[in-house]
């Protein structure tokens, strides 16, 4: 009884002491962080919005509704719509394999999953040029059969999948590892099939981690520039995604139009941040639950 009381009081004294002593230091640190944030994040965001709107709302909406802009938005959405679900499935499968089984080459697989994060996106794009280009590995055969991959949506989607595939898996592996496989084993001994076990036991346990991974994956898929730029061919109205469209507009001095399109991506970022913090709150709740689950005997 004595020990906890003692440690508690010691802790309180230490933290109050810390607070009074480091008061100025604390404010200086907060001020630095805020100033830095204002310059690096808020100022650019404000610039984007003011430049986008500096010729009035009419021009803003006109530049967004330009056929080329609409086509870029459509291609961006299509890319995300294909890449995100595929990477979700891949992410679940890979993290399931890594977290719940022991097999030869597990570390190699982990390294492979991280590969897209460690390679420059330009190189990621080049890989697809080497594979699907006219002198590439598969390119000539495919072109013979009338299938165009490079400088067309398929290559854009493939490059996006490649660049974003670690996002879901990296979020899920630690979650699944922490949960172990006892609940799944219990479900199987109770007569559940593999699918039912996954659907009724595994999925509810990983849903927050999965959602988090999907949000990050989506943000990256919609915003990817480097790899997509290499494989797209920049054909206006056909193979430009939103980030590529912005670049072209900017290079041609259509600042208002460029920033209007950029404001869409900025809004996507803000929505992502809000969704992310909501999901984080959910994850936090779940972690607390499982902690009280372990802590209490």
């Amino acid at each position: 009884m004595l020990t906890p009381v003692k440690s508690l009081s010691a802790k309180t004294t230490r933290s109050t002491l810390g607070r009074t002593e480091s008061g100025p230091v604390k404010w200086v640190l907060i001020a630095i962080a805020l100033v830095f944030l204002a310059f690096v994040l808020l100022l650019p965001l404000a610039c984007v919005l003011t430049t986008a709107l500096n010729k009035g709302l009419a021009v803003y909406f006109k530049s967004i509704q330009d056929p080329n802009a609409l086509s870029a938005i459509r291609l961006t959405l299509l890319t995300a719509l294909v890449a995100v679900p595929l990477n979700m499935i891949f992410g679940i499968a890979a993290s399931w394999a890594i977290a719940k089984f022991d097999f030869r080459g597990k570390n190699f697989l982990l390294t492979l999953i991280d590969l897209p994060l460690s390679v420059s996106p330009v190189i990621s794009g080049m890989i697809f040029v080497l594979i699907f280009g006219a002198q590439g590995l598969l390119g000539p055969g495919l072109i013979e059969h009338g299938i165009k991959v490079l400088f067309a949506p398929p290559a854009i989607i493939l490059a996006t999948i490649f660049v974003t595939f670690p996002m879901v898996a990296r979020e899920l592996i630690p979650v699944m590892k922490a949960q172990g496989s006892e609940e799944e084993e219990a479900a199987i001994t109770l007569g559940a099939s593999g699918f039912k076990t996954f659907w009724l036991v595994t999925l509810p346990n990983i849903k927050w981690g999965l959602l988090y991974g999907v949000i990050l994956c989506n943000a990256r898929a919609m915003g990817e520039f480097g790899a997509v730029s290499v494989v797209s061919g920049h054909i206006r109205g056909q193979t430009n995604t939103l980030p590529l469209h912005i670049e072209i507009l900017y290079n041609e001095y259509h600042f208002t139009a460029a920033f209007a399109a950029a404001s869409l991506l900025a809004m996507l970022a803000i929505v992502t941040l809000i969704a992310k913090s909501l999901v984080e709150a959910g994850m936090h709740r779940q972690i607390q639950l499982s902690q009280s689950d372990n802590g209490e005997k």
Partner: protein
Amino acid sequence: MSIEVKNISKTFGNFKALDNISLKVETGELVALLGPSGSGKTTLLRIIAGLEQAEEGQVLFSGQDAREKKTKDRNVGFVFQHYALFRHMTVFDNIAFGLRVKPRPERPSADQIKKKVFELLKLIQLEWVANRYPWQLSGGQRQRIALARALAVEPRVLLLDEPFGSLDAQVRKELRQWLRKFHDDLHITSLFVTHDQEEALEVADRVVVMNKGKIEQIGTPDQVYHNPANAFVLNFLGNVNLFHLRVEDGKAYVGDTAIEVPGFKAENAKTASLYVRPHQFEISRQPKNKSFLKATVKFINPAGSMVKLDLVTEVGSSVQAEITQEEFGALRISRGDPVFVGLKNITYSEYEI
């Protein structure tokens, strides 16, 4: 339904977890697999459930080979050490799980499921927690829910992996007695793993003592405790004192004292090891015969049903003895007193020639 395993072997990398294990659990029996950690007892249980595959050997349920059957079709109830309750489901949903995942033709109606779940909750005396989540319950309650969940699908055998391993001592004792009573009512063939010898001896009809992937002895609690097959079993089932004896002309000596070992028959041996349980000593102020050893009292712990004494013999070996409160009262000894130690009812000795 009976469970039989035949010549089961299993290795993990270089580690031989199970080495040619054969064992039969009769219908309606409650058998304990007892052993230190790493003895392979949990692996054996998991192989029976189909959660792990053996490299060699067979598992038979009522004489039928279960190898072809997947875990989900074996109809075994499995209770995990850490409960493994579904954390996102209420207690009701946890218990109903096994019934709800049955294929459509066999699945009971919602009403039948509800009835069954409440029957089980009544059996484990926890009807009032149906709508709670696992994290809102104590460890003992959770383990009872885990048991009810396993029983919901009416398994033919029940396998329990250290079911009380993560509970505190008091709850553990209660649940242990509860399990015994529960088994007497239901008579379901049960096999449970434990490293706690007290638990195994108290609850089980038969005890299987395992060590390093092998079975050391199978027998009733009485047999394994009073007639241990070897030194390991003796050591594992409670405290024991070891005496190294010197043998000369067919007589065993500790120091210069000739010890009378009942049934001593190794006249050709040079040395012998004698294992004596703490309660198998007789302590007195005066030697009652020539084979009493001289010793000094080092420590007395009178708290408990028996009085525990730490003694040091004149040859310097320490001895842990237990005597009854009455004997202690009659002896009137205190720390530092000289006493004489005799042996009674020795159960186990080994001879080296």
